[in-house]
Every structure is written in C-alpha cells, then in structure tokens.
C-alpha cells in the first residue's frame, strides 16, 4: 500500500506537468482559449495545476498514514 501510494503520488505530480506541456503545445493557440476570465493555459499552469499537485501529494500522504498491510 505504501509503495503504491508513493508511486501514484509521484506519477500524479508528473502528470500535472505533462498536462501543462501538452496544453501549451496544442496547435492553433488552443491554450489561449478563454474559459471565463483566464486562458486555458493560465487556468492549468497558474490555478488548477498547483492545487491538483498539492492534492496529489496529500492523497499519497493520506494513504501512507494508514496502517501498513506490508
């Protein structure tokens, strides 16, 4: 359980970065599409991405805090 939680946390954190790279590389300025006041790129890179990264780290920590079955 611990190893799985640690690995999934790390992968989720890397996924946050990969999603940003994909959004910024999308053709046709898709990253500049406005969703409300901000562009898609700013929503992910400046607002949601950091929040999701923290949640990903916390999910792993929560799982680690559970008694180990190993």
């Amino acid at each position, binding site marked *: 359980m*611990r190893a799985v939680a*640690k690995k999934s*946390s*790390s992968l989720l*954190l*890397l996924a*946050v*970065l990969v999603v*940003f*790279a994909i959004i*910024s590389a999308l053709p046709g*300025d898709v*990253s*500049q599409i406005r969703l*409300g*006041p*901000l*562009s898609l*790129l*700013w929503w992910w*890179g*400046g*607002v949601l*991405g*950091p*929040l999701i*990264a*923290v*949640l*990903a*780290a*916390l999910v*792993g*920590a*929560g799982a*680690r*805090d559970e008694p180990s079955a190993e």
Partner: protein
Amino acid sequence: MTGAGGILAAWLTPAVWLALPALFLEQGAGALWAGLLLVTAPLLALTLRRAPSDPLLRAPVPLIHVATLFLAVVALIWAGLVVAGDVALRLGGPRWHGIALAACGGLLLTAWRGAGRALPALLLIAALGLGLPLVLLARVAGVGPLEAWRVVATSPAFTFPPGSPWVAAGRVLGLAKGRGALLFQEEHRLTAAGEVALRLATRDGRQTTEREISLTAGQSVTVRPGDRLEAAPGARLRFEAGRRVPGAPETGMAWAAGAAGGARAGFLDGLGLAVTVLGGGIALLGPPLVGRPSARALSTVGIALVGVIWLAQGWAVYTALRAPEVFLGGISPERLLDVPALVLVSRTSAWRAQAMLVIAVAVGFFASTVALRARLSAADTTGGGEIGSDLGLWSMVFGMAALASLWAVDPWRLALAALGGAAAVLAPAALLPTAASRPVVATAAGIAGLAVFALLLLAGRLGAGGSWLGPVCDQPALAAVPAGMLVLWLAARRAGA
C-alpha cells in the same frame, strides 16, 4: 528535516520567490512552467523519501554528495546576498550596505542554536510582508485578480500613465534595469530633467547611425521606432504619457500568451528547466533525508507553495495593470520595490508597503540560511551534523559570499546553477537508490554527474554552446543527471552479471 517551516525555508529562498513575480511580469504565460515546477519539485522530493527503517538508507552518504550540497548551499546563500545588495541599491543606498546587513544577520543566526524554532515565525513575517502590500495594490486597483488579469490580457499596449513619476518629474534612467539600451517601439518625445548626455542609435534601412546628444533641462529629443537609447550615468529624463513603455511586451495579449518568453521556448529549454528544478528539489529535500512529513506538515507546505505562486501572479498582474512603467528597460526582481511608490497615492502607505517588502526579503533570507544549514547538517552523518553550525566555517562562507555578491549577477540564474549542480550529483542516487547503495558506485556517479555539469556550464559561459547545444549548456543538469544515472545503471548491471 520534516517540519513544514524547514522545508519551505530551504526551498523558497528570496532569490527564488522574488524571481517568480519578475518572471511572470517579464514572460507572462512563459513563467507558468517555472512556477509549476517550483510547486511540484518539493512535493515530488517529499514523496520519494523513505522510512528511517529502510535498509537502503544505512549506506553512508558519500563525501562528494556532502561537498556538492555544501557548495549548492553556499551558492544559494550567495544568491540571497545578491538580492540583498540589489535591494539596497534600489533603495538608493550602496550595494554593500544590504549585503553586509544580510550577511551579519545570517551569521548571527548561525551562532543561535535554537534558530530552527523561529522558522515558522520568520516565514509568517515574510508571507505577510509579501502579501499585505499586494492587498493594498488590489484595493487601489479596485478589481479582483481574475478581472485584473482579463484587463491586462486585453490591453492594446503598456503605456506610461499620466501621473507616473517618469512622466511628471522625470527619473534617473539608471533606475530602469539598465543592462542594455532602451529600444523604442513607437515615436516618443523625451525631455531632459537636467543636464543629460545621450547616445542614440537610429536605423535607416540597413544602416545604423550613432550620435551623441547633449541636452539641458527642458530640452527634448524625439526618437523613432527601432531607435536605441543609452544614457550617461545620472541622466534624468521625462517620458511622454500614453506612449508605449520601452521594454514592455507588444500587447497584453502577447504577454498573456507568453510570446515574450518561455511559453514559446523550445522543448529542450523547458525540459532543462524541469530537470534542474525537479532534480534540485530532490537533492535539497528528497532522499537520503529520512522521515516523511506528516499529512499536516505536507498540507502546510502545499498550501504555502500554492500561496506563493498565486501571490507572484497577483504581483505581476497588478503591476502590469497599475504600474506598467516598471517594464522600462526590462524587469529585475528588486524592481518590485518600486511598485508601491508608483501605485499608491499616499507617500506613507507607499513607504510602509516598501518597508514590508524589504522586511520580507530580509526575513526570508535569514530563514533560508537557517534551513539550508540544517539540510547540510542532515547530510553530514559522519560528522554528527557539525558542518551546519560550525561558526568558523560559516563566518568564512558568509564573508566570501558577501564579497562575491558585490559583483552583480542574476540571482535567479545563480540559484538555478546551485540547484542544477546539486541535482547532477545527488538526484541520480535518490532516483536509483539500490544501485547507489554501494558508496564507491555512488561516488563514481556523483563525479560523472559533476564533471558533465561543470564542463557544460563552462562551455556555456565561454559561449561554446551552438544552437543545439545551447539549451544543454543553459541547464547543464539536463545532461549531467542522465550521465550520473547511466553510471549507476551500468554499475548495477555489472554487479548483477
């Protein structure tokens, strides 16, 4: 080192957190990648930590790891002292005043064994010092951060506001970043606010003509699009209200899209920055440090990191909205200190806001020295952690770093070099712990990583990096970390054969 205060203070040195708003202001969306990396790197490092009972952690920490970490810590302290010097210069004092005060404060904390307990309070003061002036700016702007971003992103140009000191009384041109000539994007009438000597380079087709111009107070000169202007030290000029600020992005849309910087940077540039920052995070905060932070400490770290990136964006957006003249000549981190005086009408409020920022920088620096020394102590298992509190050693370090800080360098680049160097040596062992459990192999991998890093760094400084080698010379960790990992992998294969 499992407390939130220690983790945050070691990671968020002033050279890093003060660079963030400057990067957002200069590059717009181009800075989002750096911001996201600065949030994810410590979190990734903490998830990689192992339990103290892990047998892999019984291997001694190789000397090269401790030595490299020491050099990285010294370079980060050096970067902090450079920021202190830049701040002193911006406030109108000599550079060495800021450096000496910061170095003495850092050294005094070395003598105080219980300084680690003060970290949460120091960080809280730094956060308030950065946050409260921003609240004042937002109140003056009268719009929320999202609306402010929308207004900036749809702005047709960044122009001098009518009430700007650059327009009304004129200011010394040296207060602009001043690392190069001012490049004008449109016709602009400049008026001398005293005796000034200017050098104007005008382009006529393919030909560039340079001429020296001397003006007395009240005399004007008109520059055209594409003209470059350099001024003698102390030259005081007035700019025209409503004209584009030289050095500012073309439009708000270009800024929001990151056209001026990293959003359009190459894949290798982005990857290099990622390896440097993530690897540096692992080197500073990851294995072989033992013990994972509690969920509470981790959530504090996470909330603070998100808070810092949001504050940085807030500073950039409100500055671009209310004080676009900060773009004049290019952005540097300490120019944030100018913003309250440009935005706030009340001199007292502006002075207080500026003082809060200065305190935030100073206190943030002190906190970072305490946490970085604690990190070094944690690596020095054979010396019982004495390396972090040796007063003689740190007197020498602060003295040397203070002397080096008299030479103006970009603190953000220096911090990245420190993180990259630490990543080159320590990150491979943290990522391949089984292979690195033999000290000889870990040392060989560390030497390989450090050699590649040093060679590429040197090649970059000598300008040897061509177009394809450029990103690797710019962020040598991009090649150095894989080199160290390759050595570990080969050694593990050989041992298994």
